[in-house]
């Protein structure tokens, strides 16, 4: 069958649109995973036992199972309980929650390492426990975990390809559409890979800049 890259220009627009979707989904899910991670960390550490323990069980379950399986659960599970979300929303929620659990692990460790002295210092100033957490402990913990969290966000970009399986028209599914019309899987998947690679390089560049800034501000 051989290779023929001349078919690409005709479908370039579709692929570019898919690219935009992929970036949008990645950014949205990254934001969700960041704030979700903070919330999850606080629940896992400070919520009453009756909430904390089941929550930890679920988090543990999310870390021990594949993302693809979780996407199926969220997409079909929500439908079952009567919430019919567009695939793209289900995809963002699935990706966001999955990485929120991983981020939460990082943030928990960081909170515990900051907590001891800082919490006491804040409490002696008259701050309440939740104020001390919000104003003193969490900001420091979050700053400490930005490098590993940004690694997770770069991993999230690549895992965003999985939402194509539940029908979100991002980069991978756009490539599949073009393939459906041309029967040229090699060319279009390679093109999609190239786009992912470029976005990945861009994210790594941003990551290095952020890390440099943090290392200066400390």
């Amino acid at each position: 069958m051989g290779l023929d890259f001349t078919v690409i220009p005709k479908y370039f627009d579709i692929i570019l649109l898919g690219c935009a979707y992929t970036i949008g989904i990645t950014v949205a899910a990254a934001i969700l995973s960041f704030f979700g991670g903070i919330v999850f960390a606080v629940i896992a550490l400070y919520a009453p036992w009756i909430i904390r323990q089941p929550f930890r069980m679920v988090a543990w379950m999310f870390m021990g199972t594949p993302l693809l399986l979780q996407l199926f659960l969220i997409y079909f599970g929500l439908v079952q309980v009567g919430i019919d979300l567009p695939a793209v929303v289900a995809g963002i929620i699935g990706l966001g929650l999955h990485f929120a659990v991983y981020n939460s692990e990082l943030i928990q460790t960081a909170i515990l390492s900051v907590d001891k002295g800082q919490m006491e210092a804040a409490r002696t100033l008259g701050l309440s426990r939740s104020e001390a957490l919000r104003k003193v402990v969490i900001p420091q913990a979050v700053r400490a975990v930005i490098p590993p969290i940004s690694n997770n966000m770069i991993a999230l970009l690549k895992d965003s390809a999985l939402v194509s399986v539940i029908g979100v028209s991002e980069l991978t599914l756009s490539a599949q559409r073009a393939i459906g019309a041309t029967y040229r899987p090699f060319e279009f998947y390679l093109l999609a890979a190239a786009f992912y690679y470029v976005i990945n390089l861009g994210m790594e560049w941003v990551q290095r800049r952020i890390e440099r800034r943090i290392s200066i501000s400390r």
Partner: protein
Amino acid sequence: MDFELMLKVYPFFLEAAWITIVLSVLTAILGLICGTLGAFARLSRFAVLRFLGAAYVSVFRGTPALIQLFILYFGGPQIGIQLDAFEAGVIGLGINAGAYMTETIRGAVISIDKGQREAARTLGLSQWQAMYKVILPQAARLMVRPLGVNLNMLIKATALVAAISVVELTYTAQRYIGSTYKPFEMFLLAGILYMIIIYVTGRGVAWLDRKVQIT
């Protein structure tokens, strides 16, 4: 929660879990081979090999494993590579895991104090002798734990082959979700099996890690 249904379908999940295990083992073996070769390339004294090693790591870690799998399975025939879905899964995931393992292995090797190499070389050992007699035995001990993390990721990544219709755990769960409309039950069944596989491997890695430590 429909326990009756779960009891009825769980033998199929068990069978699928076996496929996931076989897939994981084969992928891990291929990943280790690729990772070792990749690490040696990255540590080579030849610039060409170093570049190829770095490119391997960058490209395979910089693009989605799913796309790599699709290129191999769907695009392969165009360049004369005919593989069935299972073979494509093992090879695709193995090469992908190898890129991550390359960095693990290389990291362990370069973390060995340079005095170790110097001491070996001053005794008259060749580069290769210093490597396999002095550096690698020490690096191997440092590798166990991070390779365990790679293995954990790899097991979860085997779910991707569901997208090319290999009948493993995730594919089976997906199929039964479609036919029974019981996503939670099916997720739970597959999830528990994944957790067992991951827990047992985790314990195995921890055991190996203890076993290889220097007294």
